[in-house]
């Protein structure tokens, strides 16, 4: 998944950035502490300084007042050990009592490196001896055995780099391990969310770090499924209601059509009365068509009419519909001309034969319904490489540009959630649209070159 790698990249970036930031902060902090806790002077320098300030006068050794003051300020004591006698020749007043007055060579080596009786000592070379400066016991910590293996120092840069590399690798391994666990918990949740968006039911295992999230997603899925189920039930109920009503109307309508049909041809009736009966037949026929259309449209709308798609010859389907109309049109008021190229006898498409027949019949019926004075109807099938175009046109009254725009773009009241008071087109064209949608095709409504209305159905092969 793209988003996971993006997430990991982000994590790595944040980690690198925070490592750099922490290093800088630590170094700065250490520096500050070091500066704060270290004297502004070095005790070795002080010892040298004091040694230089010690002068042998006629009255013995003496030290300048300002150096003396500095020593006192630092609470340090000092002695001068003579080079020859190794005895203390001079001392400050604050010399602790237990400081020896006589020193051997090894004592001097010891105090140079470390302590005298626990007092940290520092030496400076005086005129005829060694000046030893002592500080209070907790003033300094001395590194008495300061020596490093040469190789250790020589290899230090390399070793530092190796240690850093190992550290980085270790941190990365820990990160990967932690993240793998994380992404293992995240992955089912990501999949779950993707499934949610496609509407399929989701059930994620509720364990791992993100179990709460998994629980919430499962709950959301349940809610969505429940809502979809309720909507489906509602739609089924609506379609069933329409089917039920149309079923119940069929028998009474049969009676009306039956008797009116008989009266229409009854020789006992006058011509005016026969015409009235004919009008009843015509109108009840319209009602019959309306019921059938309403039923089919609602079934198609709520996906209750599954399409039986098979390979069919579009030419044969259109030809049958055209011939059915020609056989019905006894007074030849609506002659149909077959405009398909004579060389084209087969155009295979994947289609539901009955529904496609219904769509074409609706288009021809539309031309008949809207042209009471009769008109020519033109039917044609064209074979493009990947599509099949079925055209029904007429030479009738046609429609305005505005109406064409409306037919192409305004939803029918059956599938529209706004007001239904405005007059909209009949169910016939809605059914055609639904059927063509089911075939993944397109429908184009336009003016015909023959003067009237044109509808082209474009169906993929």
């Amino acid at each position: 998944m793209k988003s996971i790698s993006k997430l990991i990249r982000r994590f790595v970036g944040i980690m690198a950035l925070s490592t750099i930031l922490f290093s800088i902060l630590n170094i700065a902090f250490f520096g500050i502490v070091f500066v704060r806790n270290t004297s502004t002077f070095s005790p070795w320098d002080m010892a040298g300084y004091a040694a230089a300030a010690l002068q042998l006068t006629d009255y013995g050794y003496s030290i300048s007042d300002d150096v003396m003051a500095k020593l006192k300020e630092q609470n340090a004591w000092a002695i001068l050990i003579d080079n020859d006698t190794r005895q203390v020749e001079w001392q400050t007043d604050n010399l602790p009592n237990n400081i020896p007055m006589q020193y051997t060579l090894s004592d001097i080596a010891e105090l140079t490196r470390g302590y005298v009786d626990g007092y940290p000592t520092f030496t400076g070379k005086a005129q005829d001896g060694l000046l030893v400066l002592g500080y209070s016991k907790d003033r300094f910590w001395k590194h008495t055995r300061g020596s490093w293996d040469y190789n250790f120092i020589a290899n230090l840069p390399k070793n530092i780099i190796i240690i850093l590399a190992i550290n980085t690798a270790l941190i990365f391994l820990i990160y990967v391990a932690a993240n793998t666990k994380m992404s293992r918990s995240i992955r089912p949740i990501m999949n779950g969310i993707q499934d949610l968006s496609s509407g399929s039911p989701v059930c994620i295992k509720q364990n791992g770090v993100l179990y709460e999230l998994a629980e919430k997603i499962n709950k959301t899925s349940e809610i969505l499924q429940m809502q979809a189920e309720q909507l489906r039930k509602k739609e089924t109920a609506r379609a069933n209601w329409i089917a039920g009503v149309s079923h119940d109307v069929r028998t009474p309508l049969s009676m009306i059509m039956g008797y009116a049909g008989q009266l229409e041809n009854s020789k006992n009736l006058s011509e005016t009365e026969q015409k009235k009966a004919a009008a009843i037949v015509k109108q009840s026929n319209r009602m019959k068509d309306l019921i059938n259309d309403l039923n089919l449209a609602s079934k198609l709308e709520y996906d209750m009419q599954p399409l039986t798609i098979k390979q069919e010859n579009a030419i044969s389907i259109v030809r049958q519909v055209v011939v059915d109309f020609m056989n019905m049109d006894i007074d030849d008021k609506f002659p149909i001309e077959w405009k398909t190229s004579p060389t084209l006898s087969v155009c295979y498409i994947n289609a539901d034969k009955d529904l496609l027949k219904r769509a074409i019949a609706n288009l021809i019926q539309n031309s008949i319904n809207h042209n009471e004075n009769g008109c020519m109807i033109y039917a044609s099938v064209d074979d493009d490489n990947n599509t099949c175009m079925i055209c029904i046109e007429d030479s009738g009254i046609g429609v305005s540009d505005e109406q064409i725009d409306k037919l192409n773009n305004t939803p029918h009241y059956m599938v529209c959630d706004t007001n239904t008071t405005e007059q909209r087109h009949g169910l016939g064209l809605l059914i055609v649209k639904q059927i063509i949608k089911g075939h993944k095709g397109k429908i184009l409504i336009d003016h015909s070159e023959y003067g009237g209305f044109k509808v082209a159905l474009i169906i993929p092969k």
Partner: protein
Amino acid sequence: MNEDYLLNKNILLVDDEQELLDMVLSILIEYGFQNVKTAKNLKEAMEQAEKSRPELAILDVMLPDGNGFDLMERLKKSGNYPILFLTARGEDDDKFKGFGLGADDYIIKPFLPKELLFRIMAILRRSYKDENPLVYLHDSQIDFSRAEIIKNDEHIPLTAKEYDLLSALYRNAGRIVTIDTLCGAAWGNNPFGYENSLMAHIHRIREKIEQNPSQPVSLVTVRGLGYKLIVEGK
């Protein structure tokens, strides 16, 4: 052609609604059918079937003591005659198509009297051949029982394909029959690609039935769509 003999056939009409029964009965009687019996349920229908030996049954699907499909099965046991269903349910459409229950035709309510009569006559014509089997054309006659054409006192035999094509055309006499239907009648279920053969056969049929085959009057072409057989007196 005289089809009066079909009007003498025994018809059994079954529907649970008395008013609809009365209406269909009046349509049939007005058209000239003389032997129509009615029944309102399965039991009555079986009794009538035993008494009157029907030659066509028109059944409603919904009956108070069962359904029309069961009734059809029971009727078919007692005699092999055509059955036409009248149904108010659009969904039955699929049933008839899908299961091939043995019904000869079905009409979905509401229907026009003309439509009902046309279907009934078509079924009867198919099921009961005329005792006098000659079909009169403008220049000749077809004798389906002998599979031959009689033109100018000459008997010309029909080939099997020509017979199939003429039968299909005659069943829909006066109406256009599509190229596809004709190819289907002669060559079976996958009839595409036989159009040239069909044209050749039509040409030979014309030579047999027409006085002037280049200007046919009985078997006319409807360009691009199909052919129409014009029968005298029809």
